[in-house]
């Protein structure tokens, strides 16, 4: 009886989703390999065994290399393929067999172990993280040498428990259609995790399931969002998770249907949903989510990674973004560092969020600013009408005027060098400091559009540092004051016929997106993963209902009432 008691253990959440099913305990990892020797005449056969094993494993790896379209995962596999082809490994293994007359499996085992020890001894993080990949090459080679390559006894829907899972096995498991993965080891960058994420398999890591004498066939539940693993769940727990899993799937399926639909409300009113993007790797994610252009391209990472804020590197990065977004616009936000992202010669400020950041810093660091403007202008020449510049952390109109002088300087330089650029390149200002929303008229003459950054607008309106955990409950972008500032911004900009978009996290909540639409803002930018959910809600409701929602939200000064109004729009 005792063994059927439910047991809950928690690991680290690694790939979201809920897995419910029977456990399949995977026996990976190599049993000890004995230092056995062979006779003189046997050595040639052992060398041949090694060569054949290597060919077979190489084939396996090359096959999976083309499967997941994920650069991190394919990097790992590339390294493993190179390990298999490693000339030093090859000659060391041959020598161990030929000169010392060891079996192929022991020769492989000992040669790899020497390397593994050296790699572990480096104490360098990225090297240590790769050790597990090298170990799995070693084990795959030994398995193949033993000529009894393991058949997987895992059935569809089962939740796999293992110490570690080699990538080849992981890909096979995903073909079987497993319900989830729990591993004892692994880091968030390990191949199991990367593959789980890209293949949509719930995954929990660092869970010490082996302490519970888990048997294959035991019923289990894993939650890849919280990291919880339940062994022998009660009937009630099963029901609860079953429901959550179904709800999750249903919601996802329903929303997915809308990605290919036209972006308009049920009454035919158009809207645009764009993506917030920072890394080149995110591009692949845009198309499947039905994203139209980039509403906020963050440039901090690319600038941090290029030496001296190199113009050519930036041109390449921006061009890639434009190249992969069809004919849609790409809004490039100028370097928004300072504050939490300290750059080299900035001093530690006692109040960094009220300090030297965004445009304030850019105007002091002319070389950085000019390099970035030059890169953006150069790209704009090739993609006319699609490049837009967004200025962060503006609090006074003088900053915009000073920036425009710098733009002119770059334009003159480009004309002088006979370099092509878009003469009508659009310049916009982030509305994140309340002073901009309150005096928008002053800015209107000098800019082409406004984009509301709801996170910072909330932080500066409510005087809540969003990084401070003690007061994190006070940070709420749905506060009535924030909605009023958004409405104010929209009204003032409309008077001047200037477009307003929202590029903060707020837009990724479907109910808030509906309210923004109701206010009149039809251009929303968010993380690509949220777009289909937002789109589903906007497509299925009428603008009239959204107008009513906005009216209600704007009518109250009570935060809880705002939440009540929005709650009724929250997706079930």
């Amino acid at each position, binding site marked *: 009886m005792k063994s059927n008691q439910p047991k809950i253990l928690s690991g680290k959440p690694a790939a979201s989703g809920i897995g419910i099913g029977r456990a399949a305990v995977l026996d990976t990892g190599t049993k000890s390999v004995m230092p056995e020797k062979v006779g003189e005449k046997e050595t040639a056969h052992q060398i041949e065994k090694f060569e054949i094993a290597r060919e077979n494993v190489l084939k396996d790896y090359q096959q999976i290399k083309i499967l997941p379209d994920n650069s991190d995962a394919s990097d*790992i596999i590339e390294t493993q393929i*190179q390990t298999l082809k490693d*000339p*030093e*490994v090859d000659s060391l293994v041959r020598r161990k067999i030929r000169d010392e007359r060891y079996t192929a499996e022991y020769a492989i085992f000992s040669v790899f172990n020497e390397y593994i020890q050296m*790699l572990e001894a480096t104490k*360098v993080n*990225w090297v240590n993280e790769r050790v597990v990949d090298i170990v799995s090459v070693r084990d795959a080679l030994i398995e193949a040498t033993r000529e009894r390559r393991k058949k997987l006894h895992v059935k569809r829907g089962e939740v796999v428990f293992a110490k570690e899972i080699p990538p080849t096995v992981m890909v096979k498991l995903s073909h079987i259609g497993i319900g989830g993965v729990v591993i004892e080891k692994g880091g968030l960058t390990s191949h199991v995790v990367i593959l789980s994420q890209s293949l949509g398999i719930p995954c929990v890591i660092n869970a010490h399931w082996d302490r519970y004498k888990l048997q294959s066939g035991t019923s289990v539940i894993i939650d890849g969002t919280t990291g919880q693993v339940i062994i022998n769940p009660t009937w009630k727990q099963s029901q609860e998770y079953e429901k959550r899993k179904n709800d999750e799937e249903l919601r996802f399926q329903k929303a997915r249907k809308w990605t290919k639909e036209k972006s308009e409300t049920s009454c035919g009113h158009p809207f645009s949903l764009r993506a917030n993007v920072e890394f080149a790797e995110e591009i692949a994610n845009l198309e499947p989510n039905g994203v139209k252009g980039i509403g906020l391209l963050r440039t901090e990472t690319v600038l941090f990674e290029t030496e001296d804020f190199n113009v050519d590197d930036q041109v390449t990065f921006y061009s890639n973004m434009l190249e992969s977004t069809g004919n849609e616009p790409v809004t490039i936000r100028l370097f928004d560092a300072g504050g939490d992202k300290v750059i080299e010669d900035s001093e530690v400020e006692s109040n960094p969020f009220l300090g030297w950041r965004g445009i304030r810093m850019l105007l002091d660091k002319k070389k950085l600013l000019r390099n970035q403007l030059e890169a953006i202008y150069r790209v704009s020449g090739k993609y006319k009408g699609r490049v837009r510049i967004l200025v962060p952390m503006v609090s006074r109109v003088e900053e915009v005027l000073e920036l425009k002088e710098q733009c002119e300087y770059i334009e003159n330089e480009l004309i002088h060098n006979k370099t092509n650029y878009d003469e009508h390149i659009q310049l916009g200002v982030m509305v994140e400091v309340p002073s901009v929303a309150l005096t928008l008229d002053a800015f209107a003459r000098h800019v082409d559009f406004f984009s509301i950054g709801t996170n910072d607008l909330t932080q500066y309106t409510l005087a809540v540092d969003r990084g401070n955990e003690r007061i994190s409950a006070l940070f709420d972008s749905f506060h009535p004051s924030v909605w009023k500032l958004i409405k104010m911004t929209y009204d003032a900009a409309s008077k001047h016929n200037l477009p307003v978009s929202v590029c903060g996290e707020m837009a990724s909540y479907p109910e808030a997106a509906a309210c923004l639409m109701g206010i009149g803002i039809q251009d929303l930018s968010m993380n690509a993963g949220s777009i289909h959910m937002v789109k589903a809600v906007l497509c299925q409701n009428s603008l009239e209902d959204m107008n009513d929602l906005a009216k209600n939200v704007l009518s109250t000064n009570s935060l809880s009432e705002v939440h009540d109004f929005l709650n009724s729009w929250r997706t079930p």
Partner: protein
Amino acid sequence: MVSAKVKVLNESGLHARPSSELVKAASKFKSEFFIKMYGYKVNGKSILGVMTLAAECGAEMELILEGPDEEEALSALTDLFKNKFNTGE
């Protein structure tokens, strides 16, 4: 035999991708390729050898090539270091 001193410019060092790019590029040439760093010498066409160097950003090393296409190989490989192994960093 030709050789040249180079420096790792990649912010996170000669990590998985750059190591892999280096080995891939070196393997295209006939010449033998060795890397010398802090008194160690490894075969530059061996991914495990290169990884054991655990070269971090700013690490200096000597590239040594010997063979029929040594000049060509040396310039291709030193370029790779300069271009941060085309990793876009």
